[in-house]
């Protein structure tokens, strides 16, 4: 008789909570009256909060589950908390928005939860195939989310572009896995790491690594694999854009960093050159193209590309120096980007998106709180002290300098200077002019959305002024014992 191996359910618990909540939403949606649908948002919110709390309670464990396919370690739990916070914030931002753009809430919230399940799996996976499954679970849900604004032709076009290029990239990713399987005889990360240190590296192995870089490069929107980003970010419903810009990117970096910094850590010399070039290209292309954007969603899309470049610098700096900086910057990037999209949501509505940068003229004078919050996010994205964007960049660049990549750090700083132009332009529009644009009203600033914006603003300021707690948390999460 075959005895089934013991199952470590705890490692699955956060993902299971999210899955069950998603299913509950789907079924409840079938029976509830249309005017009660708003309750679904709060059910989803509770699901995210519960999964986040469970992840915090599991903190301190370092276990492996399912025959070495999933890990329950500080790294996975750190990312679980990020994903749950991003999901909960996205729900706060969506409550009113879904009614204005007539998106069915049942499917929307369920897909949001299922996409997060994929992210949780990606962050915990210690097996290339499990990473692939997590990646696809997340991506397929997000393809649908991007196209959910059915009345808007741009939304379905964005979904189609995202889907075709995403599936194309997962083909490369999968081929990379196949070649690594051929070179090492396994798809488990620890066995591949052992094979890399003991057995030497064949050309098959190197091509496999290169194909994995293509697959991950697409998901984190690194140049030259970034062409889909502005189109998809502009076309998708704004809440989904915020979710993609923060959640999907964090999940892709979670798997990217686990595979490259831990598993391929001994091969750092083989891949650092490629990532160096990718980092410089990504930052420069993102920032230079953002300069000429007039639509704020497109501008934030290019800004998210540029930030992927900064994060790649941390990858190049390597495991010991760059790892903690990478995690810290992902959190920093997350709060400020979510907040910026929140403000975009607050001033937009059905039929009148108000997405041009020139629409923001005078906004800060008429809405002091909203204007102040947007100023905080824009300055933080530029990297102005004492906000969190500055602290994050400081840690990344100093990691690069310590690792000996002086030029990379110099190029990164130069890029931050370029980025000041388009971020500050929004602030200038909000405060320095009174006339000249449309006089837009922040009619969509409902309590839930305002709460999300204020939470993001407080986090942006607080983590920038008192960085030590979050930095030591990032350090602790990145280097699990063993």
């Amino acid at each position: 008789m075959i005895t089934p191996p013991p199952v470590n359910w705890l490692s699955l618990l956060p993902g299971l909570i999210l899955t069950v909540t998603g299913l509950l939403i789907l079924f409840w949606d079938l029976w509830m009256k249309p005017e009660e649908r708003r309750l679904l948002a709060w059910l989803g919110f509770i699901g995210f909060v519960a999964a986040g709390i469970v992840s915090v309670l599991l903190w301190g464990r370092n276990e492996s589950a399912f025959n070495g396919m999933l890990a329950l370690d500080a790294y996975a739990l750190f990312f679980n908390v990020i994903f749950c916070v991003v999901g909960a914030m996205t729900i706060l931002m969506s409550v009113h928005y879904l009614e204005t753009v007539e998106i069915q809430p049942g499917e929307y919230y369920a897909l949001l939860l299922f996409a997060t399940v994929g992210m949780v799996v990606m962050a915990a996976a210690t097996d290339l195939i499990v990473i692939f499954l997590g990646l696809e679970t997340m991506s397929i849900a997000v393809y649908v989310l991007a196209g959910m604004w059915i009345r808007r032709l741009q939304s379905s076009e964005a979904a189609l572009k995202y889907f075709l290029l995403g599936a194309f990239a997962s083909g490369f990713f999968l081929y990379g896995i196949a070649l690594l399987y051929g070179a090492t005889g396994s798809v488990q990360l620890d066995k591949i790491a052992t094979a890399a240190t003991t057995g030497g590296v064949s050309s098959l192995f190197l091509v496999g690594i290169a194909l994995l870089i293509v697959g991950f490069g697409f998901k984190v929107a690194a140049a030259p694999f970034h062409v889909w980003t502005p189109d998809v970010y502009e076309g998708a419903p704004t809440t989904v854009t915020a979710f993609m810009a923060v959640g999907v990117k964090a999940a892709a970096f979670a798997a990217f960093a686990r595979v490259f910094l831990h598993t391929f850590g001994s091969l750092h010399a083989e891949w650092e050159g490629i990532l160096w070039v990718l980092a410089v290209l990504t930052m420069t292309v993102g920032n230079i193209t953002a300069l000429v954007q007039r639509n704020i969603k497109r501008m934030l899309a290019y800004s998210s590309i540029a930030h992927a470049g900064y994060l790649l610098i941390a990858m190049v700096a390597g495991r010991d120096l760059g790892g903690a900086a990478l995690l810290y910057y992902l959190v920093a990037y997350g709060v400020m980007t979510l907040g910026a999209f929140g403000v975009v949501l607050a001033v937009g509505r059905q039929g009148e998106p108000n997405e041009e940068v020139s629409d923001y003229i005078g906004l800060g004078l008429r809405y002091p709180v909203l204007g102040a919050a947007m100023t905080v996010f824009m300055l933080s994205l530029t990297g102005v002290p004492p906000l969190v964007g500055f602290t994050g960049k400081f840690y990344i660049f100093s990691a690069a300098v310590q690792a000996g990549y002086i030029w990379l750090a110099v190029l990164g700083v130069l890029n931050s200077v370029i980025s000041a132009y388009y971020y500050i332009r929004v602030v200038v529009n909000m405060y320095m002019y009174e006339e000249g644009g449309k006089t837009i009203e922040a009619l969509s600033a409902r309590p839930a959305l305002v709460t999300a914006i204020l939470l993001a603003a407080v986090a942006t300021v607080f983590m920038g002024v008192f960085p030590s707690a979050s930095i030591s948390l990032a350090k602790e999460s990145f280097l699990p014992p063993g």
Partner: protein
Amino acid sequence: MVPISYHLVLSGVLFTIGVMGVLLRRNTIIIFMAIELMLNAVNLSFVALARHLGSLDGQLIVFFVMAVAAAEAAVGLAIILLVFRGRETVNADELNLLRW
């Protein structure tokens, strides 16, 4: 017995045909078919390598990949249908609402 290199080369050629199809064809349904060809080329590699290495992992992985490909097809065709209903075309060059 056919050596492993034959399988790997065939799989590489099929994968390249798939990539070319994605890059050169303009009908999104054909592009989608080319992507499926890429995935199946990878499946061939997995099966051949599983036999060569004498491990079952590769064959098991193929089942996962097929399941993922089926899910992708369901979602992908629905998205293509959605675009066609709105625009009455599925030609990639004509999908240009989003461009700066």
